């Protein structure tokens, strides 16, 4: 039988261990992620709270990202995500005015976290968006091309330092991870282990 | 009326080395390459567009059919559109038999053009390589080669080693991303000096009496009897054109424009299957010759050749967004440089000197629209996408024949406007993308 306790990350190359620095890059692909779809202005939208382009922490601690109009990514520890999505997809939901669906997206998306005061300068090398505070403040959520791979990106500052969660299709994971390391090289990037 | 004196023609001097030496020795100047004359009120035929297609059409009307009372109208100067902005690649290794036969005739005409027009058009048949980076593109190259051979066109698929010997600067190693698996090799393909072709046709047509009118913009096409407003549209016929210099009556109007084909045709009430997109090109500073052939990569959307002056001339695919602006973009040069360095990593220190763009009229099947329209006397030679220059001589020859005979010549039957009404498109789409 397969070892199902172990989540296989798309990042399979090994990197020299590091205790940190600025910026840091962490592979947090194993984080539980769900994708929720509902009417952009229905009751489910109200319940999830995060408007398109913004994020919000749900009651159980999961992070809810307003990734597209009528579309949310919910992430966190498995139990946190379960709490946040529980009850959203009622069977009767399909007959109500709000048409809702939710699916486990954990295996579909690689997830990386870039943290540090140099993180924005590093992202400027791989993404055309404006990372300045007014345009991309803490809590911002956006989709864009990063090193030519379409990604969802959420700014989620940690310990006073700018921090960005970057999601991409799982199969691009290794490529994107390496592209981020290359972009961060001039700033002294280090690869760290952490949870989302 | 300054034109009167100028209209008296004498036989202009032929171009030759001896004449060049004599005039140089005597310090004499050359006569005008084409006359400046007043616009008449009536012509046997009016050609709209003073690019290489319009000039060739007028030239062959006069030379092959004796129709000399012809005016070529251009809103700017001769060759100001695509004719002066293209990368001047000539080839006939197309995919469909109809395409191959047509372009092969063009290559034949080009190969004697310098003598026919008495101007050195510098047709350099240096060979043309279309690189294949994947099994599927290699399969398309084979397809083209096989069809080409059956039409008598010199074309074959060669392997990486032969590619390397034709163009040593190409990286034929076991490249990580876009390996060169082979190429379609077309020895008669090459490049020509585009301006010389324009001037040569204009000068030769002028010698036969055709009039070239620059800065003459057509503002309307006058029709009668058509189903649309003002007698335009299907069932009608052309009686003249209106210009910024006055009205002209004529029974025949040939639309030889590129970039403006939809607008000119709409003046006659004819809608076309055309979307206009800019096509960009760029040139580097000169370096000593190192690239002996024309190199094209469809997958990487780039084509490149080195001029006799030592510059590399690049082109790519048309811009994705429909546009009448010819300003050029940074992303074009970025993509171009990335792709060309993928093919030739050794030229990273060459400097891009200038970029420009021209307008291309794209059709759904990557083939032109030629011949008659539902409006009698209104003919089109349009929809030339990115391949108009290489087709100019044969297009002029065939359009002239269509004007004179009133019938569609066999060589251009496949390109009729009616194909879009009956759904019989040309199969060049299969080899589409970048095919210079």
């Amino acid at each position: 039988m397969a070892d199902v306790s172990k989540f296989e990350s798309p990042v399979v190359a090994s990197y020299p261990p590091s205790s940190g620095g600025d910026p840091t890059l962490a592979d947090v692909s194993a984080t539980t992620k769900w994708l929720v779809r509902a009417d952009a202005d229905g009751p489910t939208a109200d319940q999830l709270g995060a408007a398109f382009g913004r994020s919000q922490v749900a009651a159980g601690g999961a992070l809810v990202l307003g990734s597209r109009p009528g579309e949310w990514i919910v992430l966190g520890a498995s139990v946190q995500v379960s709490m946040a999505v529980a009850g959203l997809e009622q069977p009767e939901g399909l007959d109500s005015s709000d048409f809702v669906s939710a699916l486990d997206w954990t295996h579909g998306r690689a997830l990386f976290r870039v943290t540090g005061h140099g993180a924005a300068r590093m992202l400027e090398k791989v993404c055309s968006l404006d990372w300045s505070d007014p345009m991309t403040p803490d809590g911002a959520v956006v989709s864009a091309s990063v090193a030519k791979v379409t990604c969802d990106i959420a700014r989620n500052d940690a310990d006073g330092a700018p921090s960005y969660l970057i999601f991409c299709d799982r199969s691009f994971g290794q490529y994107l991870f390496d592209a981020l390391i290359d972009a961060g090289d001039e700033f002294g990037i280090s690869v760290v282990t952490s949870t989302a | 009326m300054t034109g009167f004196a100028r209209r008296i023609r004498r036989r202009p001097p032929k171009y030759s080395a001896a004449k060049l030496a004599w005039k140089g020795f005597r310090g004499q100047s050359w006569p005008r390459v084409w006359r400046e004359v007043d616009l008449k009120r009536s012509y046997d035929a009016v050609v709209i567009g003073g690019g290489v297609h319009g000039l060739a059409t007028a030239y062959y009307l006069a030379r092959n059919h004796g129709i000399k009372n012809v005016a070529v109208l251009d809103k700017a100067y001769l060759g100001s559109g695509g004719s002066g902005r293209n990368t001047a690649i000539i080839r006939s290794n197309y995919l469909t038999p109809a395409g191959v036969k047509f372009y092969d005739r063009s290559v034949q005409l080009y190969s004697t053009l310098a003598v026919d027009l008495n101007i050195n058009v510098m047709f350099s048949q240096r060979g043309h390589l279309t690189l294949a980076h994947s099994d599927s593109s290699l399969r398309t190259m084979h397809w083209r080669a096989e069809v080409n051979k059956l039409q008598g066109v010199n074309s074959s698929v060669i392997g990486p080693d032969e590619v390397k010997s034709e163009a040593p600067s190409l990286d034929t190693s076991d490249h990580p991303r876009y390996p060169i698996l082979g190429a379609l090799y077309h020895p008669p393909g090459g490049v020509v000096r585009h301006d010389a072709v324009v001037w040569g046709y204009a000068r030769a047509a002028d010698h036969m009496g055709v009039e070239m009118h620059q800065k003459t913009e057509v503002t309307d096409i006058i029709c009668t009897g058509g189903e649309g407003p003002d007698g335009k549209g299907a069932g009608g016929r052309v009686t003249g054109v209106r210009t910024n210099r006055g009205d002209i009556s004529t029974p025949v109007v040939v639309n030889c424009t590129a970039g403006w084909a939809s607008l000119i045709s709409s003046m006659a009430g004819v809608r076309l299957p055309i979307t206009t997109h800019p096509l960009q090109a760029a040139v580097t500073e000169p370096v000593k010759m190192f690239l002996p052939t024309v190199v094209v990569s469809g997958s990487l959307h780039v084509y490149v050749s080195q001029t006799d002056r030592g510059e590399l001339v690049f082109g790519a695919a048309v811009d994705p967004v429909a546009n009448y602006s010819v300003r050029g973009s940074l992303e074009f040069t970025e993509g171009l440089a990335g792709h060309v360095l993928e093919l030739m990593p050794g030229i990273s220190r060459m400097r891009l000197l200038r970029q420009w763009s021209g307008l291309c009229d794209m059709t759904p099947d990557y083939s032109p629209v030629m011949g008659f329209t539902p409006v009698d006397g209104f003919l089109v030679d349009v929809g030339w996408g990115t391949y108009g220059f290489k087709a100019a001589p044969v297009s002029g020859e065939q359009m002239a024949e269509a004007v004179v005979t009133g019938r569609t010549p066999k060589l251009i039957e496949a390109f009729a406007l009616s194909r879009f009404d009956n759904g019989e498109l040309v199969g060049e789409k299969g080899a589409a993308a970048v095919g210079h």
Partner: protein
Amino acid sequence: MLLVPCPNCGPRNSADLRYGGESHARPDPATASPSEWRSYLYLRDNPAGWLRETWYCASGCRRWFALERNTATNEFRGPPLPGDKRGGAA
């Protein structure tokens, strides 16, 4: 690099979007004549001026929308019209 005013995301680089071209209404497939259908498939107004066209915000919100652009100057004029199917010259 053109800035395209996505109605959801805001101004985005044109490279982030897919250009859908001149917008046009789909004829009723039950009644369309071959000529009408092929006109829908192939014929275009292609104006040098204001054009009603469609875009797909491929790297952003993944929504198709229509707007008007001047093909000679690349100006946009709004507001963007989601799902507008009236076609051609505007």
